[in-house]
């Protein structure tokens, strides 16, 4: 049975995202999709959905949603973001990070601010508008999301009411943990535009995330990467999220989910798939390092990440309705700040 959520406040830097829009990159359509598909999957697990059901990605201020029709529905938060439910009668109760909550008709859910990137899932998924097989928002071409854009005040978003047989709300102490240490990359496709010493320096030096950061990509600041005689410009070829472009100024740019489909700068390397979700949580001023790995090591990293997620699902526990109100929330706060803090090597 369907239910309808009304957007009372869209928040800031909030978009609808799913697993991305595959199959249209040959006509210039970016993949889009969740910057951290693992945490979206975690939120969906808490909401009882398939891992890539459409959820709200929160990059700054979370939204306020009211269950307008139907219900109850289950809502879940994953990441460094808490929330609060206000019933139709005005009673308030907090919602911890990394927990699900059941909304009854008339309940209002207000999400707080997110540190890094956080996700909100709802039973059945946030069913905005699908274009080319995906709900993911790509605003420039008005694809997906809510009528091709981010949510606005007054929007009505369909989801699904909880089945009577559904169990109680679950929670976790923290989101699925991401790997630590350097961001792992595979060199290429244009690593031959750099001398071996430059490639070594790239895998040794510290880079800082600049304020030029959005869902399309992030510019880094650090020691200049000097091109050899082959230069910085190439005839444009295919790119993908995680690729590290190096324009003539020698300052790398990492493309993210909304990145374009082809690019004309030499690409020194590309982050491996297992480490893409980590990039979602970097903020201006954060520092990072890179480490080159082999294809086999990239595979082992994917398997390790999958094992972490499976283990995380196994640790889900019922939300205690009458526990000390803030212990879970405080605990998860502390754990999360360790995951996303801007200190060196924390990403």
């Amino acid at each position, binding site marked *: 049975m369907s239910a309808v959520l009304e957007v009372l406040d869209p928040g800031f830097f909030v978009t609808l995202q799913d697993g991305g829009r595959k199959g249209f990159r*040959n006509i*210039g359509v970016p993949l889009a999709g969740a910057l951290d598909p693992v945490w979206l999957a975690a939120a969906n697990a808490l909401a009882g959905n398939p891992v890539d059901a459409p959820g709200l990605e929160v990059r700054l201020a979370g939204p306020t949603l009211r269950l307008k029709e139907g219900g109850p529905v289950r809502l879940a938060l994953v990441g460094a973001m808490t929330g609060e439910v206000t019933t139709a009668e005005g009673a308030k109760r907090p919602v911890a990070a990394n927990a699900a909550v059941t909304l009854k008709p008339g309940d209002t859910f207000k999400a707080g601010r997110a540190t890094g990137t956080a996700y909100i899932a709802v039973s059945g998924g946030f069913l905005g508008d699908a274009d080319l097989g995906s709900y993911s928002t790509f605003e*420039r071409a008005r694809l997906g999301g809510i009528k091709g854009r981010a949510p606005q005040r007054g929007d009505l978003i369909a989801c699904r009411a909880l089945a009577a047989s559904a169990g109680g709300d679950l929670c976790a102490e923290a989101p699925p943990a991401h790997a630590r240490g350097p961001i792992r990359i595979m060199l290429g496709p244009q690593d031959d535009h750099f001398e071996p010493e430059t490639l070594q320096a790239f895998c040794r030096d510290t880079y800082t995330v600049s304020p030029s950061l959005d869902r399309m990509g992030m510019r880094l600041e650090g020691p200049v990467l000097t091109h050899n005689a082959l230069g910085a410009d190439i005839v444009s070829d295919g790119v993908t999220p995680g690729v590290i472009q190096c324009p003539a100024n020698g300052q790398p740019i990492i493309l993210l989910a909304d990145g374009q489909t082809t690019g004309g700068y030499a690409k020194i390397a590309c982050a491996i798939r297992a480490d893409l979700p980590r990039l979602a949580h970097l903020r201006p001023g954060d520092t990072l390092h890179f480490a080159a790995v082999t294809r086999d090591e990239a595979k082992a990293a994917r398997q390790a990440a999958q094992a972490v997620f499976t283990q995380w699902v196994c640790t889900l526990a019922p939300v205690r309705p009458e526990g000390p109100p803030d212990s879970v929330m405080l605990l998860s706060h502390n754990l999360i700040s360790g995951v996303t803090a801007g200190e060196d090597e924390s990403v």
Partner: protein
Amino acid sequence: MNEKRDTVSASAHNYVPARLLPLGDSALTLELGRSIETETHERVLGVAAALEALKGEPALAGVEEWVSSFCALTVHFDPDVTDAEALGHLLLALAARGTRASIAGLEWVLPACFDEEFAPDLDALAARKGMSPQAVIDTLLGATFRVYTIGFLPGFPYLGGLPEALEVPRLSSPRSAVPAKSIAVAGAMCAVYPWLSPGGWHLLGRTPVPMFDPRYSARPALLAPGDRLRWRAVDRETYDAMAAQAEAGTLDRERFCRKDMPA
């Protein structure tokens, strides 16, 4: 397999050896050349056509999509399903065949309006080239363009075949907002900006025809690699009428195509 340095020389004489380049753990780029040439591009489309014919075969298990560009083809895949090494061997083998595209692209004649409002860079480009603005327009109208690739933004066509007389470097300072449907030139290329976006190309006119429309589910992008295109001048009144039709969703794009479109 050392996939980075693996090369294969095609049997035929003047082919540049193909190279396989890793793009992370989830994509491979097959490079067939390093310059923009019709022949290289036709070989890229030849490999793409061969992959199309293999769709559904075990050899392409886990392959999600491929993107052809000027002289390379990038194949995106699910690394947990696809054997990257085997895929790389397949791509090099397809490259070694040296098959040129058998794709018969569509032929388009698209309306272009050169109203002053739409052509902010026309006078400067004309002055730079020692031509009159009308001569620049006539040169553009006399050219037949080849669609090399669709990239940068949904539906953005890179059109080769710009007459040498009009070749210019990009603007030294890119615009933060190029109006949608602007016809632009830079280097040896012409293009149309499908969406309001930043851009550093020289704006010479505007077309009322949308470059991208997801309602055409079989072909959301108007143009495809291998298509050919010419511009036909229309006055502002005609442009405005067509633009209004496009806005209302009633501008039939097939009327600008010389061949039958796929359904």
